């Protein structure tokens, strides 16, 4: 598309990350060592974060006022802005947790690869073009394969890597095939949400002749399948337990968070954006996926004895809850389903990463904590770690008033609100969905509480060493602290997630060709929204 210098100006943080990552790769071979390069990686994330904050003040003001700008392959809006900062933070946390990962000799490979992955995540946040989105998603997948490969050198790890690699590639190919169909159906444009001059796929689909609908459906379903793999939705979840079990705790934490964030963002950007407003076929597919995913994940997690398998099924279940938000958004775009999903994604990512960080703190490459029974008596031997782990698990279970509860509340009330406002047929289906979600939350509490019970009420069998290092400890504490902030101050998260909902944005005609256009006064600056942002986040 029409790449100009302003596009380059918008993606400079990603460029910097990729350059520093390349530098870490090369420098690591010349001067091996863990600490120096880890410090470089941490300071890169911090410096990029701070410089972005300083440079993008005008941009923040525009997007907080509800402005949506399309620049070449990028879409600049509130969702993209917030999620980019979130991804940088995620990168900092993961690098911290992985500061002792792998062999000393390969330490720089790990931190460099994580940085590439973070650059990919940040690109997905604002992708508005088919090939840009695909390449950005691959920039997440390929580093994930490398990290799985670097994790450990035993039979289980090799098997987990092969499984993830091949299944992930099938999913990518399905996504690409679906994209090619969308490209063909939409008059040969690759831009997803377009402007008045360049209509984009969304605009082209509104003028679609009736005969093309079946081709479009094939493309849409294949895209959903490909992205469903990334968020581990049933029936594309079967890799998750095996891969999590086979790899290290750090890699399992990465797999539980990074592909899920990317998959949810891509679903919002691509799948929701290209559904015509009056389509009656979108929500039943999401409804079935959501029902299957949460129920199957929670029921299977009940009898798992391996911690990483348990967390794998729990991550499947959480993907199911997030799909409730998508179902709501497909039934009633203005009901705020996407905002609820984003809130839930944030809460899940922090708590899930916190759990794996705590497990990483208790493990090293010689011995990974595997079984639930190994945590027996952890509350006595490592009270802080046990406390943080229990806090994150309570949040995942959705015990009020922790952050996970607010996320579930937002999702379920979104569904119930549509039920109360809606007409007969659809609303009864959504009521079933909301009730199943609540029942699932109850089932989920059982297995989370079992782990907490083992930590607090069982006598220790073997003394758990904690060789994971300060980085993992700091990561655990940081995740727990962030979950705590979201728990005691959910209003901030609610407001930001609501403001980030792109479906609410599309209601207003605020689409421009270049984000710095001085004509921005012509677009609807919503004073109320800007005010809310000033109160909430600044």
């Amino acid at each position, binding site marked *: *598309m029409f790449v100009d210098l302003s596009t380059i100006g918008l993606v400079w943080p990603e460029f910097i990350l990729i350059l520093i990552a390349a530098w870490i790769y090369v420098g690591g071979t010349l001067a091996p060592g863990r600490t120096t390069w880890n410090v470089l990686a941490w300071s890169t994330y911090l410096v990029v974060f701070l410089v972005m904050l300083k440079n993008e003040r005008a941009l923040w003001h525009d997007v907080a006022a509800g402005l949506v700008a399309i620049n070449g392959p990028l879409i600049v809006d509130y969702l993209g802005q917030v999620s980019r900062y979130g991804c940088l933070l995620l990168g900092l946390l993961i690098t911290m947790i992985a500061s002792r990962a792998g062999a000393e000799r390969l330490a720089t490979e790990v931190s460099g690869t994580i940085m590439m992955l973070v650059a990919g995540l940040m690109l997905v946040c604002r992708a508005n073009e*088919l*090939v840009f989105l*695909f*390449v950005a998603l*691959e920039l997440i997948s*390929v580093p994930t*394969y*490398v990290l799985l*490969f670097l994790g450990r*050198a*035993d*039979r*289980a*790890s*090799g*098997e*987990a*890597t*092969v*499984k993830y*690699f*091949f299944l992930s*590639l*099938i999913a990518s*190919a*399905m996504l*690409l*095939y679906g*994209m*090619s*169909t969308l*490209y*063909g159906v939409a*008059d*040969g*444009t*690759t831009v997803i949400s377009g402007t008045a001059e360049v209509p984009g796929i969304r605009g082209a689909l509104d003028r679609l002749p009736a005969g093309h609908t079946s081709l479009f459906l094939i493309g849409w379903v294949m895209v959903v399948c490909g992205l469903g793999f990334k968020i581990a939705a049933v029936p594309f979840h079967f890799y998750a*337990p*095996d*891969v999590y*079990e*086979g790899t290290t705790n750090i890699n399992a934490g990465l797999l539980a968070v990074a592909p899920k964030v990317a998959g949810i963002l891509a679903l919002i950007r691509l799948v929701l954006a290209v559904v015509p407003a009056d389509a009656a076929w979108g929500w039943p597919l999401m409804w079935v996926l959501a029902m299957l995913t949460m129920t199957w994940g929670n029921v299977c997690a009940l009898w*798992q004895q*391996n911690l990483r*398998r348990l967390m794998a099924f729990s991550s499947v279940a959480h993907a199911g809850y997030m799909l409730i938000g998508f179902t709501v958004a497909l039934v009633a775009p203005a009901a705020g389903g996407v905002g609820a999903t984003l809130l839930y994604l944030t809460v899940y990512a922090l708590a899930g990463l916190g759990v794996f960080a705590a497990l990483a703190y208790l493990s090293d490459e010689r011995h990974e904590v595997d079984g639930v029974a190994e945590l027996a008596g952890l509350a006595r031997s490592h009270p802080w770690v046990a406390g943080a782990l229990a806090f994150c698990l309570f949040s995942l279970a959705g015990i009020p008033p922790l952050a996970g509860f607010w996320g579930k509340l937002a999702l379920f009330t979104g569904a119930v609100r549509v039920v109360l406002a809606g007409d007969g047929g659809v609303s009864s289906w959504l009521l079933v969905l909301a009730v199943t979600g609540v029942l699932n939350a109850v089932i989920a509490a059982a297995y989370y509480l079992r782990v907490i019970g083992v930590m607090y009420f069982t006598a220790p069998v073997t003394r758990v060493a904690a060789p994971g290092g300060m980085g993992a400890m700091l990561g655990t504490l940081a995740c727990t602290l962030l979950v705590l902030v979201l728990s005691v101050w959910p209003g901030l998260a609610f407001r930001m997630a609501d403001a980030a909902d792109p479906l609410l944005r599309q209601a207003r005609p605020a689409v421009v060709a270049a984000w710095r256009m001085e004509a921005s006064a012509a677009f609807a600056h919503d004073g109320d929204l800007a005010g809310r942002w000033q109160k909430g986040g600044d």
Partner: protein
Amino acid sequence: MCGLLAQITVSHYLVVGAVLFVTGVLCMATKRNALGVLMGIELLLNGANVNFVAFGSKLLRADALGLDGQLIPLFVIVLAAAEAAVALAIALNFYNNHTTVDVDKAEELKG
């Protein structure tokens, strides 16, 4: 000759793409050798590439815009090469642990 060519439309290319895709799926499902499975993946990606080129071709569709349809396969080909490089490392690692590249031997993790 010219008349024969004029009858070829986008749909014919779509059939070729679909056949490539299905062949790739079958190849991945039946091959036990990890490198054979990798070839199946190449077929999958190329099936999608054929679609992109056909949809973007000015010769087949009067309303095709720009060169996007031809450029996307170039990106995908480069990606496939990068993935093949990672795949060889992963297959070598698997061979070191299992002394075979038979993916059916990847069956120890279950429950």
